[in-house]
């Protein structure tokens, strides 16, 4: 039984970090489906407290824009946040409110709502996120993350 549960967890982890959704004929899914899947992968990675899986959704040169702080480029700041969130068993859920995909398929902008709870630090907050995404070899990746936490 334990083996079965572990296998399911492994399968879920593999699904969470899997690449683009391929149709039966091997053709990539439409961008909206792929981007919704990326959002699901974010939520799954947070639920699994897996900072590495969250960071795998980001480009190495991601532009990170956080309220009250200078913008930065690279994964140092995202890593700090997501390692803190996962180490504290934070529950963070992203819900897409608006999704723009350019007609030529070269760029997408995702705007959504965040619910964040972290019992160990007494956090219970909502906010927004704005992702700029670009197609990559195996799907889409976040190239800019501008997030904002509302007053608790």
């Amino acid at each position, binding site marked *: 039984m334990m083996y079965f549960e572990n296998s399911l967890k492994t399968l879920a982890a593999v699904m969470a970090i899997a690449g683009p959704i391929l149709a039966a004929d091997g053709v990539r899914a439409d961008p909206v489906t792929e981007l919704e899947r990326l959002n699901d992968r974010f939520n799954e990675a947070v639920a699994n407290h897996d900072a590495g899986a969250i960071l795998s959704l980001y480009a190495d040169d991601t*532009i990170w*824009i956080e*309220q*009250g702080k200078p*913008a930065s*480029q690279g994964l140092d700041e995202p890593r700090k946040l997501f390692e803190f969130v996962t180490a504290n068993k934070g529950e963070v859920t992203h819900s897409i*409110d*608006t999704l*723009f*995909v*350019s*007609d*030529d398929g*070269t*760029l*997408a*902008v995702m*705007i959504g709502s965040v619910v964040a709870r972290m019992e160990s630090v007494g956090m219970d907050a909502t*906010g*927004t996120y*704005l992702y*700029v995404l*670009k197609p990559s070899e195996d799907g889409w990746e976040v*190239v*800019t993350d*501008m997030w*904002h936490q*509302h*007053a608790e």
Partner: protein
Amino acid sequence: MTTPDHSTGEVKAVIQRLIESVADNNTAILDELYHDDMQVIMLSPGDEVSVSGKAEFRDMIRSALEANGGTIGTWARFHHVSVDGDRAHVLLSRQNELTGPDMQITLGIDLAREQDRWQITREVIVTRPRTTAA
């Protein structure tokens, strides 16, 4: 002294006034609403990132207005407006003559309430190729 509560409607009205004033070629409002230490981060579809300050961005808008006969459209779609005391955050999308017919922009705007008025402290402008469904 207590801090008055500011509403999301109040902040949205500030941005709408900015849009409508610039559309009418009234660029004096830029001096009023743009914070002296404002930072503008522009992200282009080609991965270029440019950062400018108040004076540079104000000049850029004036030049664009001149190139477009002093008038631009006011279409805007607000996605989120939030207020936390004397800080606010707005997400919106726009398309007008400044962006051109093939481009649209999404903006993330941070504001601070200083000197008894809202001022924009940071504007992140994401330029993207046109989305028909926008």
